[in-house]
């Protein structure tokens, strides 16, 4: 009987369990969970603050998930060391586990720059976990002035979540635009204006130089008083465990298309893993939920002796703020073409006859057709791209392709 160990208990870990069980019903699975919750939908923590979901609906899987899959979950436990030669893992509880196959799905942690005076701030929070959301909920039981450092996905989703609970929200970022990881300048301007209409205040190209209790002293000389400080500068993949064991590590744990690390029988998946982004042929950490699942599942299948590759990862994000939906995918290289409609805009990036990336703002209908063009590297010569740019429709595909899509089992 094979012994499987999974470090982490997020979506990549759950997918790994499902991957293992699709091949092996008998092996033992131990899940090491630093958090004390069963696997939940991490991106929903902002929706929780907003009142759009509740803890019972945030579970990623039904309550009997671990039992049905024969998993032992060690809650509140961390893996503190591993010996890849002996294939053992040591836990902070003092216990040592042996594994035949290990998956590291340890996620990431907030990156907190060494701000001067940060230790004098009493009400400071990060926004990564359900417990973070609960803490912020308590901190904003009465309306507060909130300062969020970081105008990325986490910072802005946090802002939206706190919107109805805060007296004021100010967001600052060293970058001169919002969502700089997924938007170009034009897109960022549109989204910023939309957020400002809802009362969010932005200090961009600007950041806190130091803090003194409830005041931030900004780079441009401005002072920002606040009751609640949220640090959403960025995240860093949790790589220490495997790095110390000698695995090849870049920004994340390096994995191949089978999710194998450089250590024998050690796999990695999710926000801590660094695989290939095929839209730019570069190794990257793609900390997004679809990837977490796809990587975790592939890892699980392969750990159990199967053969599943995940070799078409691209960055992609669907995110909305106050009713404005954005979708982005791929890399923003090559030729740009743009379609503007009354509802919004669609920007496409093409290179060497392939769709490389897109930014859709307010115009998101059937965007999966675009995503699949990137992921499948479909030659644009084979489709009516002129039509596709205007409308995402399979009418732009050849008849035979359509016959397979809608007339066959897919």
């Amino acid at each position: 009987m094979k012994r499987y160990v999974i470090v982490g208990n997020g979506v990549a870990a759950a997918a790994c369990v499902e991957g293992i069980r699709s091949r092996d019903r008998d092996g033992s699975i131990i899940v090491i969970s630093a958090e004390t919750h069963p696997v939940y939908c991490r991106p929903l923590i902002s929706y929780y603050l907003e009142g759009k979901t509740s803890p019972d609906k945030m579970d990623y899987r039904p309550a009997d998930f671990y039992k049905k899959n024969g998993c032992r979950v060690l809650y509140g436990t961390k893996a503190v060391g591993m010996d890849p030669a002996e294939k053992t893992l040591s836990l902070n509880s003092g216990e040592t586990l042996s594994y035949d196959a290990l998956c590291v799905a340890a996620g990431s942690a907030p990156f907190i720059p060494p701000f001067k005076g940060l230790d004098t701030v009493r009400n400071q929070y990060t926004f990564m976990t359900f417990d973070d959301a609960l803490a912020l909920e308590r901190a904003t039981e009465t309306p507060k002035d909130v300062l969020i450092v970081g105008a990325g996905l986490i910072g802005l989703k946090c802002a939206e979540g706190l919107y109805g609970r805060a007296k004021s929200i100010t967001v600052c970022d060293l970058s001169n635009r919002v969502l700089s990881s997924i938007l170009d300048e034009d897109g960022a301007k549109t989204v910023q204006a939309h957020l400002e209409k809802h009362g969010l205040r932005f200090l961009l190209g600007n950041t806190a130089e130091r803090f003194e209790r409830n005041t931030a002293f900004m780079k441009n000389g401005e002072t920002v008083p606040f009751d609640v400080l949220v640090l959403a500068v960025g995240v860093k993949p949790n790589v220490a465990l495997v790095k110390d064991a000698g695995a090849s590590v870049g920004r994340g744990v390096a994995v191949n298309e089978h999710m194998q690390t450089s250590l024998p029988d050690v796999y990695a998946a999710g926000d801590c893993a660094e695989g290939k982004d095929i839209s730019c042929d570069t190794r990257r950490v793609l900390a997004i939920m679809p990837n977490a699942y796809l990587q975790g599942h592939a890892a699980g299948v392969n750990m159990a002796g199967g053969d599943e590759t995940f070799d078409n990862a691209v960055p992609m994000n669907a995110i909305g703020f106050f009713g404005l939906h954005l979708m982005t995918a791929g890399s923003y290289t090559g030729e740009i073409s743009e379609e503007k409609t009354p509802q919004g805009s669609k920007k496409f990036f093409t290179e060497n006859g392939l769709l490389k990336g897109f930014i859709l703002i307010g115009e998101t209908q059937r965007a999966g057709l675009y995503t699949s063009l990137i992921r499948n590297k479909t030659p644009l010569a084979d489709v009516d791209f002129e039509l596709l740019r205007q409308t995402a429709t399979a009418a732009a595909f050849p008849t035979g392709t359509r016959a397979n899509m809608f007339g066959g089992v897919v």
Partner: protein
Amino acid sequence: MKRIYVKEEWCLGCHLCEYNCAFANSGKNNMAIALKDKPIFPRIHVEGKDRITFAVSCRHCVDPLCVKSCIAGAISKKDGVVVIDKQKCVGCFTCVLVCPYGALAPDESGVMQKCELCLQNACGEPACVAGCPNRAIVYEEMEATE
């Protein structure tokens, strides 16, 4: 399992499937009361260009990307049918971003909806198929490599 298949060479582009779908999922027993003078939000829609038209609805993929991508754990596969738990959906649109068929769209409240083969409504089998005047949409068992 039985799935919906579309034969575009038979599609008249009449959009009746859209109305039958919206009616079947309305919970009402009179089509006029259910649909008259209201925008409809069907789970199947007709696309086309020039003289080609065809209906698009969920393919109930063997390996559905939407299920793997849903950030709310709201989409799952039950007995081969891809279903969505509308209570869990937060309307993030990730499924729209990944579905290669364009088969998901929000309902009037912004919550995502999709074809569930009319197995959960009073029809019991796809209303779009039953009402297609030219048999351009069929519901049948097909050999698959599942």
